[in-house]
């Protein structure tokens, strides 16, 4: 059989073919040897492919057909908020006045861009209940690290050098402790109780004079709202720590509650999740950070300010943590997010959360008879099933995820959070219709049935994809990370 049915672009290359068009050089040409020292003139050419424009387009069209996006079908990947990516966003981000402007132009020539940024940061401050927002961080993880660096600077400015610990719940995403480490903290874990919420007694036990902050997602990674949030905030604040909000799950609560009102001091948002980024195959994202008043002096610089009728970047910020990124953040993603916020308005955003939560609860209750549901209270925008029952039949969560591929679905997030055995984390989002949800439910029920009646169908899945399950162990043992002729 043909084992390489999709060529690499390099394998299509033929000496002498071109896919570009440059004007002829219209200035006198100097000998390269007179412009550069001998050792610095490249002698071996970079072996980039040599293909025509149509060959390029066919190649990438073929690749795109081997990829599943939200536009291709349902994508209930928990904690990732794979909602519809509006097309107007893509148009607006490509306007010359947004795409073709240079970050170091004089401020007078980019007032429209600065106005957009100002409007966005003001809207985000209102949505999250914070006092000020920076748009500089490039992604959620970058925002986490930025927020923690600000908390560190805050404690240090208070002469509080001993606050070296960041507390994270056992259900937290791995990025939380990684961000804490990169920001120079040690992280410690607080346990969850049998309802999937932070155990208050354990929190009291771990909080102390060395607490810099508690990092929390609310609703948490199980899709459950931390009902005791005010008690938790009090415990942390009384000990002198700060409360950090991971905005990964903001889609559940817009217009219903705000992190700032729950007692959080720092918030990051993932604009590529809640605010329709898009996800881009893994980025670019955007991770703005909002803070309460006492942390404003520590914001990364420059800070965008309104000045009279215009806007300006303020650089004179002596207590700032400094820059976290060149220029002013992932502006192009921010343009998309702002376009989305202006499409929905306050009423629309609240409806977004209402339907995100309704869709998740509908799915959860319809699937409850067929799978184990470790936490039975109402969920928010996502919920976690356990594949324990099917595991006893020899069918693992991984198998069921692969079987979903045969139905044309991107599977849910699996094996996360780590606290649930054989976890299946489902987030439908508000942009999916009831029909789509019903079809997905039917597929899930059929797979549960197959697990009982013909487990091999599930164990050997997928049956219809362009490749079967891939040998990941071999990829790691003998890494091939580039093409070699």
């Amino acid at each position, binding site marked *: 059989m043909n084992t390489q049915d999709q060529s690499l672009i390099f394998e299509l290359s033929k000496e002498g073919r071109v*896919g570009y068009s440059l004007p002829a050089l219209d200035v006198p040409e100097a000998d390269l040897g007179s412009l550069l020292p001998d050792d610095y003139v490249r002698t071996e050419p970079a072996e980039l492919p040599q293909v025509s424009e149509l060959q390029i387009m066919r190649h990438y069209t073929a690749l795109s057909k081997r990829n599943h996006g939200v536009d291709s079908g349902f994508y209930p990947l928990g904690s990732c908020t794979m909602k519809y990516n509006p097309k107007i966003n893509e148009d607006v981000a490509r*306007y010359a006045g947004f795409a*073709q402007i240079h*970050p*170091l132009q004089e401020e007078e020539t980019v007032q429209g861009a600065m106005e957009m940024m100002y409007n966005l940061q003001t809207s985000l401050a209102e949505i999250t209940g914070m006092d000020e927002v920076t748009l500089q961080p490039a992604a959620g993880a970058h925002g986490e690290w930025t927020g923690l660096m600000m908390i560190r600077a805050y404690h240090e400015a208070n002469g509080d050098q001993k606050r070296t610990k960041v507390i994270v719940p056992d259900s937290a995403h*791995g990025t939380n402790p990684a961000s804490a480490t990169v920001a120079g903290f040690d992280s410690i874990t607080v346990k969850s109780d049998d309802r999937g919420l932070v155990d208050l007694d354990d929190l009291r036990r771990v909080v102390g004079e060395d607490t810099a902050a508690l990092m929390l997602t609310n609703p948490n990674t199980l899709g459950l709202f931390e009902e005791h949030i005010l008690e938790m905030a009090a415990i942390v604040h009384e000990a002198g720590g700060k409360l950090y909000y991971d905005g990964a799950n903001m889609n559940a609560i817009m217009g219903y509650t705000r992190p700032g009102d729950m007692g959080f001091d720092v918030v990051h948002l993932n604009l590529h999740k809640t605010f329709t980024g898009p996800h881009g195959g893994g980025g670019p994202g955007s991770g703005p950070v909002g803070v309460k008043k006492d942390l404003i002096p520590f914001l990364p610089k420059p800070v965008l300010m309104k000045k009279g009728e215009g806007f300006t970047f303020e650089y004179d910020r002596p207590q700032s943590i400094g820059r976290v990124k060149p220029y002013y953040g992932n502006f192009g993603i921010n343009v998309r997010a702002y376009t989305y916020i202006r499409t*929905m308005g306050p009423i629309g955003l609240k409806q977004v959360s209402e339907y995100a939560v309704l869709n998740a609860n509908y799915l959860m209750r319809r699937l409850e008879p067929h799978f184990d549901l470790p936490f039975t209270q109402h969920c928010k925008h996502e919920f976690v099933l356990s594949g324990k029952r099917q595991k006893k039949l020899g069918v693992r969560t991984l198998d069921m995820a692969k079987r979903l591929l045969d139905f044309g679905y991107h599977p849910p997030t699996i094996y996360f959070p780590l606290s649930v055995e054989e976890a299946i984390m489902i987030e439908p989002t508000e942009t999916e219709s009831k029909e789509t949800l019903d079809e997905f439910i039917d597929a899930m029920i059929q797979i549960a049935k197959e697990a009982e009646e013909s487990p091999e169908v599930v164990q050997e899945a997928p049956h219809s994809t362009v490749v079967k399950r891939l040998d990941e162990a071999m990829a790691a043992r003998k890494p091939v990370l580039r093409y070699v002729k």
Partner: protein
Amino acid sequence: MTFRYLPMTEQDKKEMMEAAGISSTEELFKDIPENVRFKGDLQIEPALPEPELVKYMTALSQKNINTKDYTSFLGAGVYDHYTPSIVNHVTLRSEFYTAYTPYQPEISQGELQAIFEFQTMICELTGMDVANSSMYDGGTAFAEAALLSAGQTKRKKIIVSKSVHPESLAVLQTYANGQRLEVVEVGTKDGLTNLEELKSAVDEETACVLVQYPNFFGNVEPLKEIEEIVHSQKAMFVVSSNPLSLGVLTPPGKFGADIVVGDAQVFGIPQGFGGPHCGYFAVTKKLMRKVPGRLVGQTVDENGKRGFVLTLQAREQHIRRDKATSNICSNQALNALAASVAMTALGKQGIKEIAVQNIQKAHYAKNILSEKGFSIPYKAPFFNEFVVKLNGPVKKINKKLLEHGMIGGYDLGRDFPELENHMLIAVTELRTKSEIDKMANVLEGL
């Protein structure tokens, strides 16, 4: 009021609530305690219908002066280059841009293969063994290179040349502060890293030396001499490099660089007011298992068919948690795709031709300004940017250029007090002889 992204009808809602056994959607939010409930409407601007929103956003965008309508000589890390039309057509394939990280390889082969090809192209250009799937941008990749070096050498001193991009330097300082690393800046001489100063700064405590090639002033740093100094103390040699310049310049890999980073914005990615761009991160084989971010590797499926997967994930934050040395997860995949398409369109022949045009046109511009009597302070070899001393404040002169339909170069006095009235001029392949002549004439007439 109904919204075009929300498909639920009242009937749907009723049926769903019934099936889920709830009496109202309010019931679903009961777990949010009353005293943290938000009352009333969010005080943000009201929704706009699509045609009005188009008008509003168009008007906002038109308040900005753009490089499509104006002739730009502004570079300083972000450049106005040829973007083949095909780039946009590929990145608008929604199978790419509406997907997320390829966690399910069976239905993500397109993205995975595109990134595998990106990794290969970056290796080819930089002369390195391994490249990752992208970083946020050149500035953060630069800082991450320092963190990797400190982790690898178990040393705490980071040495950086002052000829690197000032904003990359600022980002490095923030990251280094996070890890409690010491940053030592080495000064410049004649627009290049001061080698004497570098030699005395590098010692057995040094984790790495970071330089930029071509540097912020456009000059080609003597990597050969720098490499000897760096490796004499077994420190890591980190080079930040404009990948387009490597069409004509000897790649840093040839000079013994351990880590090469930079930004692929030069390949088909809009300037976009500074982002999103596309950082790249390339290393020697020895550092393969220390690279931050995602890596795509080749493997086979159950039938022996070639396929691609995310690999060596044990390095990454979601596995290592608090043992991680980097917390990056989302990267710039879509922009890596754009860069791949642009690099493919240019190809082996075009990458050289475009780089040659840059160096030739920039030298023409320098010569003509020099003939008109402007002082060119540095004599070092340069790529597509150079420094010129003007007769007055750059800000004022740029205002004049703007009146003539031109965006002038970067005001170096902003970061280097000793370079007041000095402008950094970038000349890419898009600038024509007549545009260059016009710019020189306007400057002369001031």
